[in-house]
């Protein structure tokens, strides 16, 4: 075998065997939940024009995009995430619709990270977008759906942190810092770096209560009491409205009966520029990064000519699977998989047996052998190959 033909490039890999099976099981389970909420499947191309993922729409830094040219010289990009593609597609195909549109997708995304960071450059994402509904009901529906997806996948210990981009935006507006400082401040709060916040605001002309609040935001996460605490600290009307929205969403989640999975994090802000309201992340043990990322992006669609409110999220399937394996959550296939042995003399019988099994809903794999071989017990074969049952039809005996 040629060695250089065997390797995959840095950051991509084969998924096979049990892992691949488990991945598909998770995808199927979660996809059912998406459909059960009325979300319809959509597929978009793996590569699109650069501008769809470009700077104004702001998802992934340009140098982390896989770029190439078509024959005309246009720059093409392998999708780093789905949201801009879905926004583009829905602006095009659902221009006339005046009721909300629910779409869901599954596919691979590509981000050209530097080598040796241990990050995969290709990853599988499943997600959904709810377009055309500006209300807290939409926020809550999407969050509830995420929780149900994780539960259906079999995950038990997880937490959905919910934040509100508008809260920081309102306060930043009141503080009237220059755009550069506002960005630095956002970055510091995002990193939960309250020392940095203090250092940055030192000597700046800001009301002391507001300064105090900024310093506190990084540690403002927990239950509903966080919203009250924040309300007491600010009179800014927009900020209070942002908090009220958060409370509405929580109240609706109580109707779903899923509020116990949700916590509030006022310091959470996305690196994606397009988020404009509620944002959320899903965390669990065994994964160093969030397994779910989502939020409201009411401004994105106007880039494609159809201004419309929207909210969506993505499940990073590889990270979810990795976390579940680390937590030793069993992911067991429901398939009834059987292995049928045959030899020259029993061929016809074996094929008929297999066909019958398949008709009854089992999976039947045929394996031809020279003669019956009893060097391994059936139990061993089942264990090694992941079969539920082994059927022998072979007539010849090993001599």
């Amino acid at each position, binding site marked *: 075998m040629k060695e250089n033909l065997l390797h995959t490039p840095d950051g991509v890999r084969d998924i096979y065997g049990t892992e691949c099976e488990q991945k598909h099981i998770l995808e199927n389970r979660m996809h059912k939940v998406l459909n059960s909420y009325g979300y319809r499947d959509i597929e978009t191309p793996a590569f699109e024009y650069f501008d769809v993922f470009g700077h104004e729409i702001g998802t992934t830094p340009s140098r982390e995009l896989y770029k190439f040219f078509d024959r005309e010289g246009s720059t093409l990009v392998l999708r780093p995430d789905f949201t801009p593609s879905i926004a583009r597609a829905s602006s095009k195909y659902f221009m006339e619709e005046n009721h909300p549109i629910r779409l869901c997708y599954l596919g691979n995304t590509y981000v050209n990270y530097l080598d040796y960071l*241990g990050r995969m450059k290709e990853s599988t994402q499943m997600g959904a977008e709810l377009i055309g509904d500006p209300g807290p009901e939409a926020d809550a529906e999407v969050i509830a759906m995420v929780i149900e997806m994780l539960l259906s996948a079999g995950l038990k*210990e997880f*937490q959905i*942190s919910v934040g509100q981009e508008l809260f920081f935006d309102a306060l930043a507006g009141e503080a009237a810092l220059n755009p550069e400082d506002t960005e630095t401040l956002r970055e510091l709060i995002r*990193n*939960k*770096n*309250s*020392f*940095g916040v203090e250092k940055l605001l030192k000597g700046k002309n800001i009301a002391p209560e507001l300064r105090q609040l900024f310093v506190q935001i*990084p*540690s403002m*996460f*927990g239950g509903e009491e966080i919203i009250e605490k924040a309300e007491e600290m600010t009179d800014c009307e927009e900020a209070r409205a942002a908090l009220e929205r958060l409370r509405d969403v929580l109240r609706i989640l109580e109707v779903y009966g899923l509020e116990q999975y949700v*916590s509030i*994090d006022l310091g959470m802000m996305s690196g994606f520029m397009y988020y404009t309201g509620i944002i959320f992340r899903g*965390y*669990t*043990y*065994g*994964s*160093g*990064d*969030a397994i779910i990322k989502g939020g409201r992006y009411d401004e994105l669609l106007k880039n494609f000519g159809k201004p419309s409110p929207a909210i969506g999220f993505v499940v990073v399937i590889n990270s979810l699977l990795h976390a579940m394996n680390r937590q030793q959550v069993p992911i067991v296939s429901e398939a009834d998989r059987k292995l049928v042995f045959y030899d020259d003399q029993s061929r016809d019988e074996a094929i008929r047996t297999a066909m019958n099994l398949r008709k009854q809903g089992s999976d039947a794999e045929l394996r031809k052998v020279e003669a019956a071989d009893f060097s391994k017990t059936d139990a061993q074969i089942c264990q090694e190959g992941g079969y539920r049952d082994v059927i022998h039809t072979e007539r010849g005996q090993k001599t």
Partner: protein
Amino acid sequence: MKYLTIALTKGRLAGKTMKLLAQAGIECKEMQDPETRKLIFTDEKNRLKFFLAKGQDVPTYVEYGAADLGVTGEDTILEENRRVYEVLDLGFGKCRMCVAGPAQAAGLLRHKEQITVATKYPRIARDYFHNRKNQTVEIIKLNGSVELAPIVGLSDVICDIVETGTTLKENGLIVLEEVCPLSARVIVNPVSMRMENERISCLLRSMNDIIEK
């Protein structure tokens, strides 16, 4: 109860951190044995694990959640630029990130001419020159004894950590500009911060109380 894992920076910083933790009632007997060849140490009482790593690697361990918390210098945190939360300034390990060089190099920093900078911290150096000074520079990455570079003519200036300034002085170099002050920091994995919030907050609060005393 799950173990919380803490990554420490080998050397002086680890010693100081353990001293601080001891004041907070966390002691790890295993670690005090100077003869030990162990890589990972356990404190059963508080359900903590500790390990020692090279400074630059601490943010990596924390980013992947291999360690829930880490203690390392701000220089490595800035340079590695990992997705971690930087939550507490420990106040020790204080030093400065500086641009240094021979006295006559000062003029090179006043104009926008292109100069060469030798450093162990290419990201910090680039950010300082490009974004804060708007000066285009060529960066040469070295792995140690950076002071040598301007002396032997490899670079015009260096960008490096300065503690007392003795090494610079003995080699005829001076601090030309200060990039930023540095100290030891506690970093936390974002997921751990959520999932083990109570224990981590409690630990940080007790560390903070001791520092502020």
